[in-house]
């Protein structure tokens, strides 16, 4: 078994809700509510879930772009949350973020060359020549040509822009990359190109990914293990095949039943969840899925189930098991 690179323990990120004249904190949005997982070196760990379930917040909390409320994040042996601001800035060289929307994540006033040189200028003391070499190397790696260096982001297509933003994230040669829905803003035909690029880069540069997505087909294609999130909590996690072949939590089953089948003639039973996601400001005491779940029992109303190991690496949080 390979080495664990990132370990998240009981991570919580709450956002204060302020109201009234004096901006008093009246409540908290429980965006990420006590989640734990481990990411092995050179593997891809996927976080899936519907909009607003806290997957992006989790990704950003690991990188401390959003300060988590509590918990422990170990990266390569260091406790990330104990680092000072300056130490954290240095650490960012090794942990990077790829954004969802390549239309807003690149400064419109900087040329590609400047965008790519910026991480190098920030973290390394390099001569212009060394920097030029690095920039050309990364341009080649992400499949862009050198004559595009002096162009501005708006002169590129969506796919090309995402290549630029990937290049910008990995030019400092990080070990760990959080990819926050890197393909969901792109056309399907471009999606596969970018996914394959990410897989190639992972092999070549020995990267470890946390891959955030709501597209289950994409997740199945790219990840080694998966965690399914619902209302700020992990409801099921395990190896990708375990989750896709044998989903145990009713929420995971419902999610998977929503994936369009490759064969349009094949009849499939859709599990449709009733109602809405409860508000993360005041999460219910029992299981968050209680009101929507077909298999809900009395205990679900009172007790919030904890993650239980089913077999080997497969864990799920449900009273059924």
């Amino acid at each position, binding site marked *: 078994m390979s080495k664990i690179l990132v370990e998240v323990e009981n991570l919580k990120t709450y956002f204060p809700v302020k109201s009234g004249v004096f901006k008093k904190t009246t409540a908290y949005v429980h965006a990420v509510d006590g989640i734990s997982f481990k990411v092995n070196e050179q593997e891809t760990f996927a976080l899936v879930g519907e909009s607003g379930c806290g997957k992006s917040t989790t990704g950003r909390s690991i*990188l401390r*772009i959003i300060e988590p409320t509590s918990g422990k994040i170990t990266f390569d042996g260091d406790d990330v949350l104990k680092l000072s601001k300056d130490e954290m*800035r*240095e*650490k*960012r*060289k090794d942990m*990077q*973020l790829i*954004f969802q*929307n390549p239309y*807003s*994540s*690149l*400064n*419109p*006033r*900087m040329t590609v060359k400047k965008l790519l040189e*910026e*991480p190098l200028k*920030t*973290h390394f003391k390099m001569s212009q020549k060394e920097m030029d070499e690095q920039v050309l190397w990364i341009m080649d790696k992400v499949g862009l040509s050198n004559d595009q260096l002096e162009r*501005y982001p*708006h002169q590129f297509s969506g796919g090309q822009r995402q290549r630029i*933003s990937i290049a*910008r994230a990995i030019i*400092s040669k990080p070990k760990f990359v959080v990819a926050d829905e890197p393909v969901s803003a792109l056309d399907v035909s471009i999606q596969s190109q970018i996914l394959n690029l990410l897989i190639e880069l992972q092999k070549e540069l020995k990267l470890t990914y946390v891959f955030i997505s709501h597209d289950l087909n994409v997740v199945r294609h790219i990840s080694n293990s998966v965690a399914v999130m619902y209302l700020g909590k992990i409801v099921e996690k395990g190896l990708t095949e375990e989750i896709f072949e044998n989903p145990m939590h009713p929420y995971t089953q419902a999610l998977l039943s929503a994936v369009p089948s490759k064969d349009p003639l094949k009849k499939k039973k859709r599990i449709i969840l009733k109602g809405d996601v409860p508000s993360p400001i005041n999460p219910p005491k029992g299981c968050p899925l209680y009101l929507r779940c077909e298999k809900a029992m009395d205990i679900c109303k009172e007790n919030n189930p904890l993650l239980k190991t089913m077999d080997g690496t497969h864990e799920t949080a449900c009273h059924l098991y």
Partner: protein
Amino acid sequence: MKTIIGIIKELIKDPMGKIGFIGVLVIIILSVLAPIIAPYDVTEMFTQDKLTGPSSQYFFGTDNFGRDVFSRVIFGAKVSLRVGIISVGIAASFGLIFGVVAGYFEGKVDNIIMRFMDILFAFPSILLALFIVSVLGPSITNTMIAIGIVNTPVFTRTVRASVISVKSMEYIVSATSIGLKPKNIIIRHIIPNILAPFTVQATLALSGAILTEASMSFLGLGIQPPDPSWGSMLNESRKYMETSPWLVIFPAIFHYFYHTVIQYFGRQLKRRIGPKIKAVGGDLWKIYWK
């Protein structure tokens, strides 16, 4: 450079823009060439030709001291433009610093800066300018300082609002995630993206500053005699207005021309560069320049 030429080309497509652009060019040329254009020295008195009407010798006539009104109007233009540009420069620099600090750091710093700006804003601008000049003493430098201070809150507000809007863009998060220091994020990512509304604000403030200067000089607390200023010329000629109307008409026409032309220029500039910025810099313009 290319974009500047592009904006000018766009600007002169519209008749209003054309008037504004050509007018501003004329103003700049008149001010630069004032010593060549003006036939006489501004303080030279032709005592035998007091209060004579417009003629081929004195295009705009002479005043009660026998000074050539045409020369004084031309030099007054130079003074106005200088006061305008320098005072707007003062306001813009302080506005940029305060606005960026308030918008970027928010919280307490923001509150302190913005409440102070609110205090400055609460006074009618001419009253505040007169107050500052009466404390510092009337002179051309103090007039510029006063007009600069009066205009600072407007710039601070514009800049702060733009900074807050740009700050929420994902490329700022991206800069943070790369590990940039706040100083570099501000200089490299925020300021370049707020320059457009800032430039437009500066153009519009220029005509306001010229107007304030004229009002202050008219009240005797701006440019001091014998230096020519349209405001002080109007003031001095009040007594002779009925018998020698040219003393009032020409400075007033020039003043009107300057004010209008710069306003046209500013407004059209705002219209022209608005959509372009939207295409590359997000929805900043939707909020502030509707």
